[in-house]
């Protein structure tokens, strides 16, 4: 009886410790974000930011655009098979555009971004930590938060919304290829229904707000995991996995909350 009680107490203690560790990590991550993201960039800072824009933005372009194209094509194909039963295939453009702008473009682009750029950011910063490059930077009198972390954070904040726009545009074009060019939906109704039903503020604007929120969360998770990892090969591997898992869950969870607020009348 006493041993069972002791076991239970140990479990509770362990749970409490895990909770405290999680809260402490969250606090550290908050301070980290504040120290890195706030401040006026120098000329050198802009140069570093541009370099990171290439790394996290331009190099993610191919995977995001190709995914956008296929998702738009699949949406059109699946949408057509359902809409045609109701004689509503003219609404295909509206369906493709709204699905992409409101949901799929922000969410899928963020998930792809987490996998491609987020994991790379974590591994890069982690390896810099493991090889003492961050420490040596500190000892030279250069703050790695300003020099290494800030350009990557801001590049992520800016790049993902732009990638999301690219995803939507290519997705709508993919829907056009399948719906109009292949399945024979009337071109005029594809575009005019889209124009008539898509609201710039409600659909495009809200989609971009989602994308911006995801950009902040995914990039923050990626750089913090890299900066805070245990500087060993196993530590880098674990942190990279954590980046992808935490980012994906955060994106999907936040997407529900944001959708509920933006379109669910909450």
């Amino acid at each position, binding site marked *: 009886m006493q041993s069972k009680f002791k076991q239970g107490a140990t479990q509770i203690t362990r749970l409490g410790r895990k909770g405290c560790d999680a809260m402490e990590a969250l606090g550290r991550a908050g301070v980290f974000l504040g*120290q890195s993201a706030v401040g006026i960039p120098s000329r*050198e800072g802009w140069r570093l930011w541009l370099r990171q824009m290439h790394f996290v933005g331009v190099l993610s372009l191919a995977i995001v655009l190709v995914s956008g194209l296929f998702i738009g094509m699949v949406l059109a194909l699946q949408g057509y098979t359902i809409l045609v039963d109701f004689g509503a295939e003219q609404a295909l453009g509206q369906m493709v555009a709204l699905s992409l702008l409101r949901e799929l473009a922000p969410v899928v682009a963020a998930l792809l971004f987490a996998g491609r750029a987020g994991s790379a950011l974590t591994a890069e910063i982690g*390896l*810099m930590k493991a*090889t*003492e*490059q961050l*420490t*040596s*930077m*500190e*000892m*030279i*009198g*250069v*703050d790695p938060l300003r*020099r290494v972390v800030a350009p990557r954070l801001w590049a992520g904040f800016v790049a993902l919304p732009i990638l999301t726009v690219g995803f939507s545009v290519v997705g709508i074009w993919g829907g056009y290829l399948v719906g109009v060019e292949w399945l024979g939906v009337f071109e005029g109704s594809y575009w005019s229904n889209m124009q008539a039903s898509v609201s710039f503020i409600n659909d495009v604007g809200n989609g971009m707000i989602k994308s911006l929120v995801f950009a902040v969360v995914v990039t923050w998770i990626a750089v913090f995991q890299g900066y805070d990892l245990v500087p060993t090969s196993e530590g880098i591997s674990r942190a990279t996995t954590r980046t992808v898992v935490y980012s994906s869950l955060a994106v999907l969870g936040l997407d529900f909350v944001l959708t509920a607020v933006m379109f669910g009348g909450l």
Partner: protein
Amino acid sequence: MKVNQPMTDVPFIEIEDLYFSRGEHDIFRGVNMTIPQGKVTAIMGPSGTGKTTLLKLIGGQLTPDRGRVLIDGQEVHSLSRKALFALRKRMGMLFQSGALFSDLDVFENVAFPLRVHTDLPDAMIRDLVLLKLQAVGLRGARKLTPAELSGGMARRVALARAVALDPELILYDEPFVGQDPISMGVLVQLIKRLNQALQLTSVVVSHDIKETLSIADYLYLIADGQVVAHGTPQTLDTNQDPRVSQFVHGEPDGPVPFHYPAESFYRDILGHA
């Protein structure tokens, strides 16, 4: 009270009653040191005694549990982040691994501190970098990337980078480890010459006795979390303390155990441990 200090010199670094631990393991238990200005001070001790940790405490990368570290009168661990980085501009540190920036070539690694801390024109930066690289014998390697360098070469590039801004203080973390005899001789000479030419304060952490004794003006020997002896190389060489004698003369048997603390070997082999 400061007990372990050379009394004749102006102090540049003062370490007072320093305590530091990692988890349950006490690394320092009341360390006191005074490092004089313009001299080469060596901190020696067996592996695992926390020599590199001590350098990190001096550089403000770690915070002590108790006690304080003063550099030129400034208490390192009570400085703001900005003030600490300003203080670090006056320091250079040679890392054991070199810690070169892997995305920059040799030239840019050495130019890095000059580019971020000065407004010097490119032509002048080029001249200064070439001077530093010439001093370490690697002017011809300036276009190589860190991945193309041997361990010894990386260490020498790191030394050129550490002195790029002509700092007042240089911290050397195991500078002689893994060096071939030629590179070792070059490094010993470099450290000595740099110290004399630039009137630097140098702190060398090492367990290479011969090389360290040849360049150090003053030595501290740490073991069991404390300073066990200090003095000039001559006084340490003749010190009768068994711990000092065992270390200085490289004796395998003595008060400093070779084995990590463990259960009895007999019981362990029988599976009772």
